[in-house]
């Protein structure tokens, strides 16, 4: 193999490259160009990064994404006109099978590539796609979801952030919350209410908003783990051009329905996510992984205890079955055996089993997870993580919402009684104003 044949350039012909040939080409390219990953499962490193480290990490993700782009492996299933490779979801899956063991831009994937880029690709105008997708694939822009609001996370259609038209511009006012990394990210995909006089689902519109501009104040939220990655944004008279509107005015709910679908595919099945097969795009907690539990239990002389063995085995079974289930559901959706709402099954799985894994790790860590020395900070992290246990069932849509989706959209059980459906949104009862600006 000469240097010239491993540049990763897509073959000239118009015929779609076979998945097998593509996989071979990817294998060669990865071996030559991508650094090997530190698997991150061995030790109990503290998982919190300093701001400095976080920025360095993001810079590294930008670099890695750029390497994929230059090699011809960014946006594998994205049309060439928008900077992608014009191949298929099967090619992306093949790439994900090959990339195990290599460094990859883990933080570019979610929410930048999906759901944000997925939504732009699906609803953006030709011009919007040509303008906004290539910088994403090159690692130049990171996107965040301006979706949840302090008034309620699951009731997305109840957004109170308001956009009022003023000539060729829109004026945005309101607040968004739970945007990871908004303090360093570039763009937000923002849901806003453009009509208060129609029922809630019919008065919404989606906009693309540059995060760092006059009128947007980004406040960092401190979580129980000490993490300050989640942000809340306060928008005051933010003016944006109509060219940044995605989809039709007042028809944002159509966009959001697909947006939330793409969000559910982050656990597996998205044609745009680059991540090693079997590993969800959202990073797992390395301190509670089954591989880490073996040395942990061994160090305390517990490995011979059948109860401990059962817990370790359960954690490992959860990992193996999660991979099997992710592929099983993705395949069923792909072949049309089930509708795309079945992605909620995978979401429910990762939420509930992460809780279980956290319980197991906390139990095996024992009292050291409550009070620890510097040398034991890995075990301390298991405790800190346990405080945050429910996050897997809340973030990205609660497991209660996933259960609704499974029962109503997959199994056809009756929907809940709605009091907010056929009345103007301004007449729908709502909570008193939440969270004051700090």
């Amino acid at each position, binding site marked *: 193999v000469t240097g010239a044949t491993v540049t990763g350039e897509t073959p000239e012909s118009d015929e779609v490259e076979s998945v097998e040939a593509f996989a071979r080409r990817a294998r060669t390219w990865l071996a030559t160009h991508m650094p090997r990953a530190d698997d991150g499962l061995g030790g109990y490193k503290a998982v919190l990064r300093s701001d400095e480290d976080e920025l360095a990490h993001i810079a590294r993700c930008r670099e890695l994404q750029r390497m994929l782009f230059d090699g011809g492996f960014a946006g594998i299933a994205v049309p060439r006109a928008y900077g992608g490779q014009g191949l298929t979801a099967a090619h992306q899956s093949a790439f994900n099978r090959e990339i195990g063991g290599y460094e990859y831009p883990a933080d570019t994937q979610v929410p930048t590539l999906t759901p944000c880029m997925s939504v732009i690709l699906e609803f953006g105008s030709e011009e919007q796609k040509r303008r906004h997708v290539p910088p994403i694939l090159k690692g130049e822009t990171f996107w965040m979801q301006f979706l949840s609001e302090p008034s309620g996370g699951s009731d997305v259609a109840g957004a109170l952030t308001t956009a009022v038209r003023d000539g060729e511009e829109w004026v945005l006012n309101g607040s968004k919350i739970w945007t990871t990394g908004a303090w360093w990210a570039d763009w937000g995909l923002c849901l806003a209410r453009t009509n208060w006089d129609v029922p809630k689902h019919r008065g919404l519109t989606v906009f693309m908003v540059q995060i760092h501009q006059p009128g947007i104040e980004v406040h960092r939220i401190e979580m129980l783990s000490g993490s300050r990655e989640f942000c809340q944004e306060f928008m005051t008279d933010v003016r944006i051009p109509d060219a940044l509107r995605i989809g039709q005015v007042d028809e944002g709910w159509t966009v959001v329905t697909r947006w939330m679908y793409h969000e559910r595919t982050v656990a597996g099945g998205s044609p745009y996510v680059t991540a090693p097969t079997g590993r969800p795009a959202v990073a797992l907690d390395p301190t509670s992984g*089954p*591989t880490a539990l*073996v*040395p942990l239990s*061994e160090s305390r002389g517990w*490995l011979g205890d*059948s109860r*401990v*063995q*059962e*817990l*370790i*085995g*359960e954690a*490992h*079974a959860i990992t*193996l*079955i999660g991979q*099997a*289930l992710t*592929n*099983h*559901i993705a*395949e069923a959706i792909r072949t049309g055996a089930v509708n795309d709402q079945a992605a909620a*099954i995978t979401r*429910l*799985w990762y939420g*509930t089993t992460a809780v279980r894994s956290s319980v197991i790790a906390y139990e095996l860590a024992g009292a050291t997870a409550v009070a620890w020395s510097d040398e034991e900070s890995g075990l301390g992290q298991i405790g800190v993580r346990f405080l945050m246990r429910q996050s897997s069932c809340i973030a990205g849509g609660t497991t*209660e919402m*996933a*259960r*609704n989706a*499974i*029962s*109503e959209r*997959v*199994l056809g*059980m*009756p929907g*809940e009684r709605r009091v907010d459906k056929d009345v103007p949104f301004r007449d729908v009862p709502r909570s008193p104003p939440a969270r004051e600006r700090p």
Partner: protein
Amino acid sequence: MFTRSADQQLFEETTKKYLERAVPPATLRELAGTGNGCPPDFWRQGAELGWTSFAVPEDAGGGSVSEHGVKDLALVAYQFGLHAAPGPLMGSNVVAAALGRWGSPEQRAGTLPELLQGLAIGAWALAEAPPHDRLGEIELTATETAGGFRLEGSKTPVEGGADADYFLVTARSGVGLSQFLVPADTPGMRVTPLHSLDATRTFARLDFEGTQVAGASLVGDAANAGPAVEWLTDLAVTMQLAEMCGAMRWAFDTTLEWTFNRYSFGRPLASYQVIKHRVADMKMWLEASFAITAQAAEAVDGDRPDRSELVSAGKFYVGRYGVELLQDCVQLHGGIGLTFDHDLHLFLRRVVTDAPLFGTPGQHAARLADILAQEAAR
């Protein structure tokens, strides 16, 4: 559950129709607690359909529908679960698989064809009485004698033990394990029928008190059957997984339909969010069980290195959540779900019976931990 080839679909459909006709729930209720739980000629006709031959290599008289015999067999087991079917599917297949792979020419020419044709019934005597009842623990001893081997110890519970013609007995001989093909009429072997939960399956305890068996009854090499026993365990558990998936499917579909048709306080049960959320959890357990079962069957069929890992992950999960699913289905049915007249118990019995046999869910989790620890040590 699995992606099926056209041939597999056709085959599965034939088995399904046969089971629907031969052993509908009303028949199962009549057969409950009688003899071997099968209608006359049921097993021989099933053997004609191929039920006994999929785990046996072709050169030993076996065969497959898809060239992936274990996956074909898993489809049969799935249909058995879906119909709570009676019959020695487990025992006859395990014994036939062992003879087909490791049997002597005489065993392959004599006993194996009888098993393949459904004329004789096999049973696997693996598990032992407490305190030696953990997965993989074998204390029954085989001591070499002038005329063969002397067996000392007990096996229980042995599925199909009261009706089997041949037992595959797993024994410890010195440092390793040995397997013996022991006919049911062997003098000095005591067969005691047991009470059991399954409606149409029988179980027995076997006691060997210095029982003499011929040297020719050895299956494979003496003291070297460890890997064979592991493989047979993985095969047996794969069949259990597929069968439990079938029973779960029946219970889930039936219960979902029930929630639509059963009205309470003027509304169908299906309209209550508390019911919907439980059904959603059950749906997740069901799909996860299908997913890992398909993976396990594929790994066993291909004899992959991760075979035991996937099988044990499956047994841990399906054994635990399959039981939960069935019990939750009973709960959603209310009192009627606890009656003999409702069909649900036929499937509940099947799943709760499969769950602890050939290793409890907890023991399989421990087996997984053991695999991880071995990997870590490497």
